[in-house]
């Protein structure tokens, strides 16, 4: 049961006042929210406009072009053949990374809080320290050595392994702090009822930690979806690459990658993600709207 501040105001009790006065605070907060949404959306609308501008208009700062040119989409879809393959690569690498990392983080977070093996304190400290360590850049050579040893150079699926580690530490720490909110008594009670560790985690602890799971999913999705440095270093074939790497090669605006073409690809890349997201958003935000206390 949520309490809404807007209703709490005494004004609500006096319906004679004008609508604006009654909803002053609501209007105020909605305007602030919408102002920020505008800031988020305006640059993206600019890209959308860029993708339908004629070449000379692309070099002018006007929002509305003098002359529209809708051919850029057809051009990039016909002339840039690897585009769907790269998009597919990005999707499956990201999906695998997100699922595996979340699974590993949930297992580890649960073990750290409710099983408490020896030396777990050291492990937590190590995870914390690793957050501050800018390994990403310096470790490229080392990661390359490992991947090469495993025979995973130029393998798109092989990217999943280093990708899992990108946010593993923070994911475990998030899951740990979320599982800390699950009372030990609940876990103990389940065990007394005869449930093993796996069943306790799966049926009792995880549903109660749904919020944390969502956060972990989001963190990992964002990182894996946009990763560039490792993707560029560990793959060689254009057809083995993920979308960000391909686009990084294009941002100089060379040859066929003129600004309107680049903007068209931009829209093509971002749109499916957004559409897919609006479909799953219900599941996605549901976990957040449900309070932990309900369990």
């Amino acid at each position, binding site marked *: 049961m949520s309490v809404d501040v807007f209703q709490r105001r005494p004004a609500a009790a006096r319906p004679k006042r004008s609508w604006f006065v009654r909803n002053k605070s609501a209007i105020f907060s909605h305007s602030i929210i919408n102002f920020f949404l505008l800031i988020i959306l305006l640059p993206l609308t600019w890209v959308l406009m860029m993708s339908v501008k004629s*070449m000379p208009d692309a070099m002018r700062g006007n929002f509305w072009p003098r002359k529209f040119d809708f051919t850029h989409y057809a051009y990039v879809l016909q002339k840039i053949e690897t585009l769907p393959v790269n998009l597919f690569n990005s999707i499956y690498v990201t999906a695998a990374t997100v699922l595996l990392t979340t699974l590993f983080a949930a297992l580890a977070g649960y073990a750290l809080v409710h099983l408490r093996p020896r030396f777990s304190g050291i492990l937590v400290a190590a995870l914390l320290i690793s957050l501050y360590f800018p390994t990403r850049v310096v470790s490229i050579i080392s990661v390359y050595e490992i991947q*090469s040893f495993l*025979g995973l150079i130029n393998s798109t*699926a092989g990217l999943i392994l280093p990708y899992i580690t990108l946010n593993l530490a923070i994911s475990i720490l998030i899951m740990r702090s979320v599982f800390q909110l699950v009372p030990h008594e609940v876990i103990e009670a389940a065990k007394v009822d005869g449930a093993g560790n796996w069943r306790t985690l799966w049926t009792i602890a995880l549903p109660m930690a749904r919020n944390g799971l969502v956060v972990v999913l989001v963190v990992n999705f964002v990182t894996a979806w946009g990763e560039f440095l490792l993707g560029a270093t560990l793959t060689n074939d254009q057809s083995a690459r993920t979308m960000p790497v391909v686009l990084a090669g294009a941002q100089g605006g060379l040859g066929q990658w003129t600004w309107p073409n680049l903007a068209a690809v931009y829209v093509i890349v971002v749109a499916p993600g957004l559409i897919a997201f609006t479909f799953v958003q219900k599941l996605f935000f549901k976990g957040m709207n449900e309070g932990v206390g309900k369990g």
Partner: protein
Amino acid sequence: MTIRKEQEYILQEAARQQLLQGSIDRREFLTRSLVTGLGLAGVGTIAKFGISPAFAQDRPLTPTFYQWIQNLHPGIPAFNEQFPDVNYQIAPVEGFGIERFVAEAKDKESTWDVYVGQTPFVEMSAMIAADVIEPWDDYIPKDVLDDIIPSIREEGTINGKLYGWPFLLDVIGNSWHSGITTKAGLADKAPETWDEHLANAKAIVESQAAPYGATFDNHGWRCIAPMAHSMSSDTYTPEGLFNFESDAAVEALMLMKKIMALSQPDILLEGGSDGGVNGTVDELAFAAQRVGYITKYFNAPLRMAAYWDDPKALHLGPLPKFSNGEGSTVFWTTGCALFKHGKNKEKAAEYIKALTYDAQIWKDSIAGTDLGRPGHLPPYKSIYAGWEADKPDWMADFVPLVRGQLDRAKAITNHLFGLQQFVIGKPLWETYLKGEESDPRAAMKRVTEAVQAEINRG
């Protein structure tokens, strides 16, 4: 480990070929790739698919190109059809491949056989030091070697050996927007001297034909070096570094300051370019049709003119001279390097020879296609001689002009710090351009010291 890698590679490659031939579908290809990717556990599974004969084969010739080369020359994949068994690969962004090359060379192996994208003064010395590449001399045909324009051959040569087989030639020149110059009442011809260049730029600003008169690219190898060469190309120290304290270099610096007064205000900035390679501030001003003249290698204005209302308004000309100067300029080639630990070296020479002589690539580069007009020129004497003897109808005026400059133009001397000296020096010589230091020689002295300090670190 090496064997593992080879096996994985061959399996992957075999699956890829089958996919291309249509004997397996995309889903199966992905399954196989996935299994291969998962390592040894997969080898047994894959062997069942009956592609074990693939093990017996050697890998095909495997060149790697930079993405931007294919972006500028989209005809390369079509050219590759002449070599159906070549495993053509692309490196995404300039600079990102080299760590890989070095790391592999340490293990005495190389995923690739040829690297197309090497600019000698930028990276050749480093690649040799790291034992990544070997000379072409044992593989390049003698007649090809002798066909390379002498100054270009010198550029790719270290200790008498040809480490860089030249491909795409860039020469620094001077280009203008004739719509703007005409509006300013100027004749449609290239300024011969820097004084004329400055006077024209001033006329543009004063007549308000455009907000800015002239611009240049602020990266040292694209501004201070060619401008110094236009005075004298003898501006290098005995160990091969650019002599920032030479008269020519100091004159160039003073010239830059004069041009700056007539240029866009952000001329010294990195802008939003990708590490200074493309989309530099001067290019953007030129593309936005706000500046009359640009001093740069020709593919830049050719690309930028595509954004104009009338791309035909672009005219290209040689670099202006100092009235007492020798009138040289700077050129570089983007060429091909042979991996020491690669394979198929004879085949590589055969492929690169065909590539660099390919008539279609040169025609597309000069005349342009609907995919763009890079304006890169070939490195061989015979090609220019052929065009001179029988001029094709698509020939552009700037080609003979650049060819003429090449007899005088000079590449930046190869050195481990060939590129880096300009990167280190830039903020220091800019103290003079920004007016923080009034004495150009004092600024240049600090550049020399900073470069030397960085070299001494090692």
